[in-house]
């Protein structure tokens, strides 16, 4: 009746469809047949006297309980199929799917953007859904996945493609004039082909900041520390890692130290403990509560490469 599933999630969805549709068919056929039989069997020309019974508690209970059980089984099938859709494997390949009027774009990181979705077969893929304007909804019928792309919401979906081929991606949340044209393709390829494709994909988008740089920007460190060797309120960051500096400690003694991971951590958490000679005291506050150790490690990684 409909196209074969091409992802790991299709089985759960199709099972639920099968259960509901088969139950529906049985009930619709049985009830309709019974109605027609009743109308024919008890037609006025054959049955002049109508029976006058008005109800049966036993029957009411039967046809309350049995439908309740049946619909709960339907609910259970629906839930089981759905549960898989929210359990994203740890090793899923993360791709950002961007919806904007009226096109899809897939961000593979490092500025690599593609208008079609290319994914390796048998690899869990998680799509992080980002809207740049209105509501959209990303729908891949063959994979049985759909989730709305809502501005301001971190929606996601995931799937593991199980068959090679090309599949439609459609927008299913009305988004204006060319809503019907917000259509692209998902291409499922072998792992090697995927890698080649990704390597050859030209980086046209913004290359994101190094995580360490992102921390520096987020905490406004660069207001006082230049990345280009300029002396501002504090010393510049470039080329400082791994070199020796003369510092003044809290009691005013000068000594030479090596700028390493420990020194950087100390400078963030206790900035006035060891100040590079030539810079003012008490100008920087401790970032104890604001920058985690993990973030400091990222800053260190960044400074190592900043020549």
């Amino acid at each position, binding site marked *: *009746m*409909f*196209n074969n599933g091409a992802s790991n999630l299709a089985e*759960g*969805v199709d099972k639920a*469809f099968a259960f*509901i549709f088969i*139950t*529906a068919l049985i*009930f619709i056929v049985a*009830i*309709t047949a*019974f*109605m027609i039989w*009743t*109308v024919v069997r*008890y*037609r*006025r020309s054959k*049955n*002049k006297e*109508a*029976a*006058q*019974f*008005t109800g*049966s508690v036993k029957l*009411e209970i039967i*046809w*309350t309980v049995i*439908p*309740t059980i049946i*619909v709960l089984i*339907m*609910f259970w*099938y*629906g*839930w089981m*199929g*759905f549960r898989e859709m929210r359990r994203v494997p740890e090793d899923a390949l993360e791709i950002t799917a961007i919806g904007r009027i009226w096109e899809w774009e897939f961000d593979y990181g490092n500025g690599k953007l593609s208008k079609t979705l290319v994914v390796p077969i048998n690899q869990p893929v998680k799509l992080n859904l980002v809207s740049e*304007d209105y*509501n959209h*909804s990303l*729908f891949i019928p063959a994979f*049985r996945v759909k*989730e709305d792309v*809502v*501005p*301001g*919401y971190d*929606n996601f979906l995931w799937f593991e493609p199980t068959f090679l081929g090309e599949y*439609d991606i459609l927008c*299913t*949340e*009305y988004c*204006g*004039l060319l*809503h*019907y*044209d917000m259509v692209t393709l998902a291409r499922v390829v072998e792992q090697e082909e995927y890698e080649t494709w990704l390597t050859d994909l030209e980086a046209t988008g913004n290359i994101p900041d190094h995580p360490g740089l992102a921390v520096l920007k987020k905490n406004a460190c660069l207001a006082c520390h230049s990345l280009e060797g300029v002396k501002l309120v504090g010393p510049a960051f470039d080329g400082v890692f791994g070199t020796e500096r003369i510092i003044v400690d809290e009691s005013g003694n000068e000594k030479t130290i090596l700028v390493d991971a420990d020194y950087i951590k100390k400078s963030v958490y206790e900035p006035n403990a060891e100040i590079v000679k030539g810079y003012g005291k008490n100008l920087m506050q401790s970032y104890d509560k604001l920058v985690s150790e993990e973030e400091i490690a990222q800053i260190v990684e960044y400074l190592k490469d900043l020549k």
Partner: protein
Amino acid sequence: MGKQDTYSHISYLEHKGRFKGIMSWLTSTDHKKIGLMYLYAIVVFFFVAAVLGVLMRIEKMNPGPDIMDAQTYNGIFTLHGVIMIFIVVIPGIAAVFGNFFLPIMIGAKDVAFPKLNLFSWYVYIIGAILGVLSQFAGDGPPDTGWTFYVPYAANSSTNVIFALTAAFVLGFSSILTGLNFIVTIHRLRAPGMTFFKMPLFPWSLYATAWIQILATPIVGITLLMVIAERVLHIGFFDPALGGDPLLFQHLFWIYSHPAVYVMILPAMGVVTEIFPTFSQKPVFGYGAIAISSLAIAVVGYFVWGHHMFTTGISYWSRWFFSFLTFIVAVPSAIKVFNWISTMYGGSIQMRPPLLYAISFIFLFLIGGFTGLTLGALATNVHVHDTSFVVAHFHYIIFGGMGFAFFAAMHYWFPKIYGRMYSDKMAYIAWGILFVGFNVLYFPLFILGLQGMPRRYFDYLPEYHNGHLISSIGAFITFTGLILMIGNLIYHRRRGVVAPSNPYQGVTLEWQIESPPTHENFETIPVIQNPPYLFKKTEK
């Protein structure tokens, strides 16, 4: 055939008020005339929206643009939805047949507040006119869909504000009618008619009226908030202004899901009247049907989230909304079994109202089971916002509420106009309509399963066959509708004069003249028996 030319009494149709001609209608506080004024407005709007539907189907017969461009198409499906939902289906049975028959069926001379009733009709007409004006005034027909989802509705350059205001105004008409019915049922039942001696059509109107009063204000304020967002740039829903787009969807569906029950409960009430009359047998499980109406009205409040399964609401919200959706299906199933058992063992006379009522059950079953498909989480993900949903709610609203409306039109036609329609013509029209309906909407289920999204001006080539069949069905359906309504309009003045009780019904409307007099009852009846007592000798 010994045809009588006219009836002998002076009915509400000839009643002389202060004015003559059309003014005697426009100023009448008679619940029967107000009911008919709703009927005429609704039939006119229904045909306007049906023509829009046919235009959409013509456009989609073949891939690519045929008779319109994408913007026109988006405007047309918006107008089709706004008219059908807010102007035709929500007032629908309650405003027409509720107004006409609720007071009669409970033994009253009118509703509790007749002037408020007329005022509600004017509010309704003002709302409807605003809806029509939205097409011509300002910056072009609105293109948001009847759901007005923000952020799109906050940013569309079309005339959205008019359409929002129209829906807002129409909401007040609905609230006031609901209020009127609740007070009428509480205060004006004939002596001896306890709640559980009341016929089941009034019961269904009672459940409906509570939903109208309690849920409609929510959508009213929500639509105002969208207007405030557009005009004053207050960020309620648009993330660009700091709002939350899902908040809109929650508020919208908190009303609009219960609104589905505003549409379907009176329809259920209508067929509950028809089955006993044509079977000459009491309703099976009176109490179960009455209570299940209330159960649907109550539980129906807590299932709105099933319109939002794919929006990113939390895992457990999806779980609970899905669970409750399945629970609310049970009272509907109970009703179906009771209707069939009402016919079982009866002395069944096949007439057009019964045929419409039986096809109501068939279509409602298909609509109901496909509703369960949408209520289950896994399957919802696949068919949500596809043409499967379009097919589902047309089976419920058109196949359910629509066919019940047609059943009611045929059932009460002799009472309203004092004339009979042609049964033969009614059967032919039914046959064409029933076949056309299924040819029109069933392929949309298949298309939806194949992945065809809704609200698409154009489609990928693999969906062509289904669309072509569906479009052919649209023409058949429309032909059936014209024949059906033509049969009724033609016989309104020319039909054989109807006796006061052509189908041997036992509810109060069949105990008075056809058409009723201005006052309905000379003396208010005193009620001693349960409502569906066909044989006084048996208990």
